[in-house]
Structure formats: C-alpha cells, structure tokens
C-alpha cells in the first residue's frame, strides 16, 4: 500500500516539478501583428515589426484608444529573417509573439532584385508563424512605410491592410488575398506562378506614423491597394492594374462580385451589370499534339444602373445586353491572358491543369512550360452571361421623362 502511494506521489511530483513548461503570460509577450521586410543600401535585410499596444486599442478598458497609437514599430537589420528577430529583441522588453502576425509586407526592391524565394523558409519553419499569414508587396514605397502607418477605423494597420485587400477582391476583383502557404506552393510548382497583391501608401507620407494622421476625417496618408504583382522565378516582373487585374481574376475563378459596364447608343458605360454569381471552368485539351486551354465562364447578375432610356422590359433588349456583356468580358479575359503570355509567367495555373488532365504529355513539356509552351498556348474563351434581375424596376425612369420621345 505504501509503495503504491509512493509511486503515485512521485508521478504527481514529476508532473508538477516540471515547472510551468512553456508558459507565457499575456503581459509578458509582445503581440506582433505585421512584419515588413526591406533591403538597405548595403544589401542587408531590414525588418520592421508592428507590435500591438493592447491598452491603446479602442474598446479596451483603460480608454486610451485615440490619444496614443495602437501600434508600436521596432526595426532591426540583419542578414536573415531570424537574425532580425534576435536583434529586435534587444529593443523590446517582451518576447515577440508571432502567432498573430497576419501580415507580411515585402519591399518592392527585394521582390524585384533578389526575389522572394529565400525569405519564406524562416516563416514556414517557425511553429509560431501561421501558414495563413497574408502576403503583400509594398509598391512604390518601402515595406516599413506600410507597417508604420497609423490608420483610423481599424486601429491596427495590419488589420486594415488585410481587410482592404479582402474587400477589394470581393467587391471588384482588383486585388488577390494570398497567404504564405499558397505563395510557397506556387513558388515550387512548375505549372503555376504566384501573384501577390500590391499595397501602397498614398498622401503625405512624412506623417503616416504620427498620431495626427488619424486625427482628421480626410486621412492624409492612407494605405491603399495597388494592383497585383506578377512573379516569375520568384522575382517580381510586372504589375497588373485595372481591367488586366480583373481579367486575370476572372480566369482564376476568384471573382465574387464585380461590375461590368457596356456602352449603349454611343453613351459610354451607360449600363452597369453587377455580377452576383459566376463560375469559370478551365480545361486542357491536346490538339494536334499541342495543348489547348478551354475556358468557359458562366455569369449571372443584375442590371444596377442604366443612364439612358432603354426598354428593359423587352427580352430582345436584354439578350442584346447579355451578348455585349459577354463580348466585353471575353475581351477582358483574353487581354489578361495575352499579358501573362507576354510576361512568360503562368499565373493562371494552366500548367497544373495540364498536369492533372494529361500527365504524360505534361512530363514532356514541363521543363520549358513557362518560356516555350505557355506563351504560344492557344486559349479559347467562352462567356455566357445571364441577366437575372434588372434591380427594383424595369424601365429606367428616364424613359418616362417628357423630353424623351420614345
């Protein structure tokens, strides 16, 4: 009996004397919300860490939100990513905690000159870092500028950047929200190249890290989305803006909502069509020993604006509009594909689709897919649009104006 108790006591003892293992109290850690990576003149990495000041985030108890910045920024220079962390720790009183670092900003210089291939290993290897951290490229500014900027509604600017990209992707299709995992997957894939959203700070960039930046209703320095960056072999080679970006997103099947404008009776952008639902199917085919891509898009949406008197009651008119929409959309997508082929960067993942459907043929062309096969690839785009509703009314009220003699 005594022996039994002794064993039990020892078991409990070993458990509890192990100490509090990897215990970290919340007020002993510095929550990193974003990290920016730049390059200095000597070619060293400059890391910028955005750390949340929990007490200053609005809504917390002390009511400090508003007067003091919600974030603090620390900078460190080093030769590799982990080096940055250890150097930054000489300046911060607390352990940096990366599990909530949801944003990684990469400077345009690094992306263009050195490429992003070498950066991500430390992020992927660390147990703290999340594979779902979003990645953006600082376009035209340093990564630190984006990380430092104080923003108004979302106090933590990392949050603001992520949300802006997400809403831009959802509402317009002008940006793409990609995370660490996707970027690494696309970097190693032979059949797909990564694309990463660009971000920039517009306005008075001297003041972006001052509290007064957020104290006006018209914020002086505001981070905004800026196109989509195209990569080839890990290096940034091109920026896609406006319709090119949207066209690429159509091919990638990542459009949720977007507006399509068509001209009508010589009036530019007279009718606006809002996409509600869409599905893009991409298939690969072998034709005469050469690969051919078939893209089929089904779009469903509403008419949301008609600035001219047009009889939307008539099915013929609607069919006409549908056809024109399809034509415009087809052109938009084809333009985007042509641009990608010119860049020799298969951002659409056509190669992966080939790999899945024709693995044997893929083996042969895999090696020089980006440089030889992809730029010459024949792509057939078919678009089918459908007008589900015309909003809350049929004929625009313009038709009823006395002046118009319709």
């Amino acid at each position, binding site marked *: 009996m005594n022996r039994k108790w002794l064993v039990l006591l020892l078991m409990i003892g070993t458990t509890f004397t192990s100490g509090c293992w*990897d215990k*970290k109290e919340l*007020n002993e850690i510095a929550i990193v919300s974003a990290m920016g990576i730049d390059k200095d003149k000597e070619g060293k990495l400059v890391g910028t860490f955005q750390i*949340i000041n*929990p*007490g200053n*985030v609005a809504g917390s108890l002390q009511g400090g939100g508003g007067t003091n910045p919600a974030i603090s920024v620390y900078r460190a220079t080093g030769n590799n990513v982990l080096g940055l962390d250890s150097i930054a720790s000489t300046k911060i009183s607390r352990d940096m905690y990366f599990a909530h670092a949801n944003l990684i900003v990469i400077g345009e210089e690094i992306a263009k000159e050195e490429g992003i291939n070498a950066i991500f290993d430390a992020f992927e290897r660390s147990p703290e870092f999340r594979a779902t951290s979003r990645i953006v490229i600082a376009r035209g500014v340093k990564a630190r500028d984006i990380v430092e900027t104080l923003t108004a509604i979302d106090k933590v600017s990392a949050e603001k950047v992520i949300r802006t990209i997400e809403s831009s992707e959802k509402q317009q299709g002008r940006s793409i929200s990609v995370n660490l995992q996707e970027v690494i997957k696309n970097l190693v894939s032979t059949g797909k190249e990564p694309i990463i959203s660009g971000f920039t700070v517009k306005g008075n960039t001297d003041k972006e890290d001052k509290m007064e930046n957020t104290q006006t209703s018209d914020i002086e320095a505001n981070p905004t989305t800026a196109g989509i960056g195209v990569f080839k072999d890990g290096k940034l080679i091109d920026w896609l803006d406006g319709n090119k970006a949207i066209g690429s997103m159509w091919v990638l099947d990542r459009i949720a909502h977007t507006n399509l404008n068509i001209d009508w009776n010589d009036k530019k952008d007279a009718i606006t069509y809002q996409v509600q639902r869409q599905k893009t199917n991409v298939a690969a085919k072998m034709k005469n020993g050469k690969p051919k891509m078939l893209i089929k898009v089904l779009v469903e949406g509403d008419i949301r604006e008609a600035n001219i008197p047009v009889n939307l009651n008539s099915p013929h008119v609607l069919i006409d509009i549908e056809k024109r929409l399809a034509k415009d959309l087809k052109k938009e997508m084809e333009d985007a594909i042509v641009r990608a082929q010119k860049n020799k960067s298969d951002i659409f993942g056509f190669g992966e689709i080939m790999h899945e459907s024709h693995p044997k043929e893929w083996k042969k062309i895999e090696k020089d897919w980006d440089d030889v096969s992809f730029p010459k690839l024949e792509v057939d785009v078919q678009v089918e649009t459908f007008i589900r509703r015309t909003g809350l009314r049929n004929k625009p009220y313009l038709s009823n104006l006395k002046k118009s003699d319709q």
Partner: protein
Amino acid sequence: MVSFFKNKGQMKKREKQKIDDKDQSKSKKLEYIDSSISANLDHMKKKTGNSPDIIVRTLKISQNPEIKTTILYVQGLIDNPSVTDFLIESIMKNPHLKEKLLPKEALDVISEEVVSLGGVESVTDWEKLFLSLLSGDSIIFVDGINKALVASTRGGERRSIQEPSTHLTVRGSREGFTESNATNIAMLRRIINSQDLWIESMKIGTVTKTDVSIMYINGIAKEGIVEEVKKRLKGINIDSILESGYIEQLIEDQVMTPFPTLNHTERPDMVAGNLLEGRVAIFVNGSPFVLVAPALFVQFFQSVEDYYNRFDIASATRFLRIIVFIISIVGPAVYVAATTFHQEMIPSKLLVIVAAQRETVPLPAVVEALVMEITFEILREASLRMPKVVGSTMSIVGALVIGQAAVQAGAVSPAMVIIVSITAIASFATPSYSIAISARIVRFGFIICAGVLGFYGMILAFIVLIVHLCSLRSFGVPYMSPLAPLNPEGLGDTFFRRPMWAFKERPKLLSSNNNLIREGDNQRPLPPESRGMKTSDKKKGEGNES
C-alpha cells in the same frame, strides 16, 4: 441472516451498558415487566431519569375490588384526541369495566372490547415497551398482571407536506417528502398502487433507534441489489442516524471519490420513477431526503420533468445540462490554458482585448483564477449560512468589491470575472446539487493542471477523471453505465431521451431481467386512418394532376 441476529444482540448489549452503567447484569437477558404497578412505575422512573414529559394517568376499573390501571404516554409524541377520546374515555366509561372483573381478564377485555384504536398489542419485556412508548404509543398497565398493552397513538406536531425546496420543476407533482417516514411511505403508496411495492423497516442507531425503511418493487428490482442494500444497512453499527446523509456515507461503494454514488431526492414522483426502474429507496425517519440506490452518473443529469415534457424538448435540455456540467468543470481551466499557453488559439481581436485587460493584473492567470474561484466559493458559502436579514448587504458587498473595485483597481481582469460568473451559473444549472458540488472540487484540480501544463495538462486530468469515473460502482452496478460498459438499449435515456412510446424496456443492469418489458408494442400514437372528406379531396387533386 444468522450474522444479523448476532449483530443485533451485540448492539443491545452495548445499549444496556450505556443506559445503566452501574447495573451489574451484563447478560443478554431481557428484563420482564413486573405484575405490580408501583414496581413497574418505579422501574420506569429510574430508567427514564424521571423525565417530566412521560405522563402517568392512573384510573380505577372494576368493582370489589377496584383494579388500578395506569396509562403512560409521552407528551407531544401522541395524537391527543386518540388518547383522550379513545383510550382514557373508553376505559372510564365502558360498562364492561364497571362490572366485576378479575385482573387476569381485565387486560383482555380492555384490548378486545374497550380500546377503539387501530393497533393494540401486548408486550412483556421492557425493551419493546420503551421503544413503543418513546415512539408515541400509549402503554396500559393493569395491576397484578405482568404484561402491558401497547396502543398505537402515534401523532403529534409534524411539518405538513410542502413543495420540495430542491429539484424544482415547472410541471409535475408539488408534493415533497416530510420528516415523517409514515407520511413519506404513504405518499409512495398513493403513487404506486401495487401489492408488489414492498417495504422493510429496521431500527438503526444504538441510541437514536431511527426508523429506516427500504422500499422496492418486488419483481422489478434485482434481487441481488435488494439483498446488497439490506446487507449494508444491517451492517451499520453507529450510535446515531440524524439524516439520510449518515446512511449514505456508511453504505456507499467507494469512499475516496468526489462523485456521489447514491442519489437523494425530496420528490416522491422521482422516487417512484426510480423504483419502477428497479432501484431501491431508503427512507430515514427525520429526513425529507430519500436515498435511491444504485445511482448512475447519467442519472444526476436527469430531472423528473424530462419525462413530463415531450421528448425533443427533454432531450435538448438534457444535452444542455451535459454542456453546462462540462463548463462548470473546465471553464476557468480553459481560460487559464488558452491565455498562458496557447495564445495562438484565441482570435487576434479577442486576444488584444484580453491582453489589454491583463496589462495591469499583477498575478499570473492561474493564480488569478484560483483567487477568483475561492472568492466565489466564499461568497456562496456565506450566502448559504448567514441570516437572511443581512443577505442584501452581502450581495452588495460581493458585487461591488469583486465586480467593480477589484476590476477598476486592475487587480483582476474583467475577462476572469466573466469566466468565473459563467462557471458559477453553470454549476447552479446542474439539476443535482450533489454532482454540482463534485464539479466544484474537480474544477480546482483542472485549474491547477491547466496552469502547469496547459491543455496538455487538462487532457491528462481529463483522462484521470474518465478512468476514475469508469472505475466507480454503485451497489455493484458500473457507475458510467450504460455508457461504459456500453449498452445500446440503455442509451435512449442518457444524453437524450427517447419518446415515451419507444420506452420498451427497463434498464438491464438495474431491473430484474425476467421483467424488462414496460410497454406494449405499437404505442406510437397515430392519426386515424380515415380522414373522411380530406381523403376524397386528395384523390380528386391527384386525378387532376395526372
């Protein structure tokens, strides 16, 4: 059975030793009643220390010679009208007793022709006489006879039947048990009108001689379990039984466990339901809490109302109770583990809020949790024990000190207050008070494990808890059944309750296996097959469609 008598003999021996220390007779011999009244009364006064509540009323009956008769009873224990109207008045006014009688006949005449009371019997030894007298019966001595008559006149002031204060329900009987065994047993008789409702009584407690009755339904209860209950009750040798809690602690299977292995209730309908599942009820005089054995883990999450409500609602509330129980065990532990070990699990925004609150808190989260939990336990204990008049003062102090001041001073984080409050409410939402207390003790263990090893420690503690629960038995029935060992039939009355029309069988481990069927086939209510007009309408419609 032989051993039982032996035990009882020993009990009596000790009892005597206590009562008359100086009495030289240490033998088991019974003392018999003397034929002389005065000798009897002297003996009586000596034995009871001349207690004034024992009333002695002397009457004279018969003529030539007159025979002295004495009536004895204990004030307050008797039913006054019975004694005055049916005992004293009958004896004084009965014409039979006016005639000439021999002392020998007198007692028989009194018992057979005079006393108009339900229970009358004659006793010869003091042992039985005292037991009856002190239970509220009246004793009649007749001079010259070495026997006494015991007339059943038990009564006196008792609490009337009231609504039970625990196990409250919206729907269901409003009756609760009282302190009187006779009343309680009668309540059960009223619910179960069957000759198979068997009751056995015994006296437990060498000094208190408390009435303890066991009740079961013959044919439904498993014989093994009934025998086990009887065996354990008979094995009890203690001076006093003041509440059913005494019995519970003396007959439970496993002592070193925070979990109750006997259930207790104030509700007759709950006892009836349990009897019908083959359980055994133990009534203890003086306690409104009736013990029910064996008790299983899942039983503590069942309320009688589950069976009165429709099955979907009952199942939903059952499920809620399980969740509530888990919250009340692991609530603060999860908070401690998540905020000190697994910050990555908390959504970023929530983490920032919690971190902001914890900025000023000087204590580690685990200490904070323990301090708050102990504070809550103090508040709870204080509000239970203190006089009701100062109740409002306490709640103000509690709410202000803990809810406001501690948070404003930055000594405690508001998140912790929220967690502790939710846990507190959760522990009160568990239907059985006894399992809620267990949860409170187990909770502290979980907090410490979470503080030392995070979720890993909590999982270890959880494994220990599950293994412990599975090792428990209640009167030989596995505590976790029908979950472990798994009995698919029995699962219909655990986390959810199957519809009443599908309750085909009684629980196998509790009930006698010869008598498991509790309802006939096809009990599911169905609408009438013919719907008159509607059927023809439907046919017409179908015709049109085709």
